């Protein structure tokens, strides 16, 4: 089951980290409605992460709270893209758009996984992701087509985010096995479908995907190599839990 654990860990960590980043908009959004929207998505992401940690627990890993909040940053398998700071609303929106389309396509595929516990969870989650993607598409379009400043900001954010986003599709050691036993379609297939879906939406938002010759995926996250942003976030999200790890909180 090592191959399934690898898949579950990277997904659970992606969701745990982006869920925390989304939650950081609470109280600070550009309009109140966006504080609320990002909080809703944060709750979904953290909930999805918890569901995946629960499957891991059933596979013999530590129980979800301990697993999520007692590891060091170098033991995390999330893509570096997700640990970067929220920065401004432009970068957050671009990341939300790029990640959530990949997330939705991933769970769509996993709804048919041969590994039934994951397929069952994926079927439930994919219904919620429809709204995340809907939200991202609306904002990409509004800001890409807004005014000169918003357009320029969104294009810059897209340029800055792009290679990090490609890092979401970093392959793990068990990639071939996951594909062979129909657990998961594989990162390359997922990336191809993702590109096909996001390209027309980006064009409609009057934005341009960076030229392919400049594509250099930021890799390493899946193998535990991270930016200092993750150290800061892991310390923060575990801060209270680690005061007394055995206690009930």
């Amino acid at each position, binding site marked *: 089951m090592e191959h399934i654990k690898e898949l579950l860990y990277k997904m659970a960590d992606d969701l745990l980290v982006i869920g*925390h980043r989304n*939650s*950081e908009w*609470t*109280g*600070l*959004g*550009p*309009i*109140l*409605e*966006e*504080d*609320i929207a990002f*909080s*809703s998505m*944060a*709750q979904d992401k*953290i*909930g999805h*992460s*918890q569901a995946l*940690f629960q499957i891991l627990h059933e596979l013999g890993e530590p129980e*979800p*709270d301990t697993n*999520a*909040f007692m590891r060091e940053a170098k033991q995390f398998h999330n893509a570096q893209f997700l640990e970067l700071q929220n920065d*401004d*609303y432009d970068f957050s929106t671009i990341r939300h758009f790029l990640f959530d389309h990949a997330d939705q396509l991933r769970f769509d595929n996993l709804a048919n996984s041969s590994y039934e516990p994951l397929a069952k969870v994926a079927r439930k989650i994919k219904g919620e992701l429809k709204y995340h993607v809907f939200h991202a598409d609306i904002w990409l379009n*509004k*800001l890409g087509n*807004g*005014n000169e*400043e*918003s357009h320029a*900001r969104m294009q810059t954010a897209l340029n800055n985010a792009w290679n990090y986003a490609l890092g979401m599709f970093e392959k793990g050691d068990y990639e071939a096995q996951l594909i062979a036993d129909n657990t998961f379609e594989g990162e390359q297939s997922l990336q191809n479908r993702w590109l096909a879906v996001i390209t027309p939406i980006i064009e409609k938002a009057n934005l341009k995907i960076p030229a392919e010759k400049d594509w250099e995926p930021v890799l390493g996250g899946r193998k535990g190599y991270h930016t200092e942003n993750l150290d800061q*976030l892991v310390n*923060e*999200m575990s*801060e*209270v*839990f680690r*005061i*007394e790890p055995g*206690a*009930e*909180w």
Partner: protein
Amino acid sequence: MYGNAYIDPNEKANAMLAGEDPIKLAEFEARIARGEKIEPKDWMPKEYRKQLIRMIEQHGHSEIIGALPEGTWITRAPGFKRKLALMAKVQDEVGHAQLLYSAAETLGKSREDMINDLITGKSKYSNVFNYPAYTWADACIIAWLIDAGAIINQVANAKGSYGPYCRALDRICTEESFHLKYGHDNVVTLATGTPIQRKMVQEALTRWWPPIMHFFGPSDKISSHTEILMRWKVKMASNDDMRQQFLNMYVPKIWDLGLVIPDANLKKNEETGKWDYTEPDWDEFKRVINGGGPCNAERLAVRRMAEEKGRWVRAALLRKDEKYVTPLA
């Protein structure tokens, strides 16, 4: 959560009614006396509009500023269950601000103007949020006892005379009752937990008791201007009455948990049936409300930063062919 609106005690009733048409005023007061609700398009005295805008706006500000001390604990909340619950709670608070600003907008002040008045310091918010939440236990005490105080205040105000505000409060109170359960569950967990947890929660209670006693506003002895606002059902209960109700409901629950309230004089007076307590330091209250509290500057700076950083987003949403429309109810 919510803070009691701070109404300037120096405004005299006569000045408040200057220039009003006596026939319309009598009709308006008769409607309120019959228990009718006043709606946005109805005639109302200028002062009624002004006091309501001030009160609803302050309430809205308290919700978004209140999201800051609790919000910093979202990423730190221990474990999945607490994180998910705290996120949902603080999200509710921001949602309350949205409801309240809409209710205040029906009286003719735009959300943008209200937020500008907040960040320039012209408009107040609940004093309690000018104090820091040092530990997780502070966030738990806030969720339980500040929200408990808010419910007492809001249940009273929900019976007031202005329709849109009452309807917003009805919904807010429903959500707040969950917050209260959430806060209580957190405090019970800490108070019945390990020695470190018990110490944390006791220290948080000790820190928060003076702001909690301030929460309902100055003593009636020094805040005697409210007669007309009570008649208009803008203000529904006196500050001291609400404070007594709070003490009656929550002091026994706090003591049940084995926690110590830092007021040696606090006890129920068998003769009067009311609680005796050390008079809160009202000079401190005034000092904090006027900007001298430990977090006033930080709270407004964060809010200003959020407004500044979000300006380009709001600008990008504006369309030349769209114009501002006041919400109807």
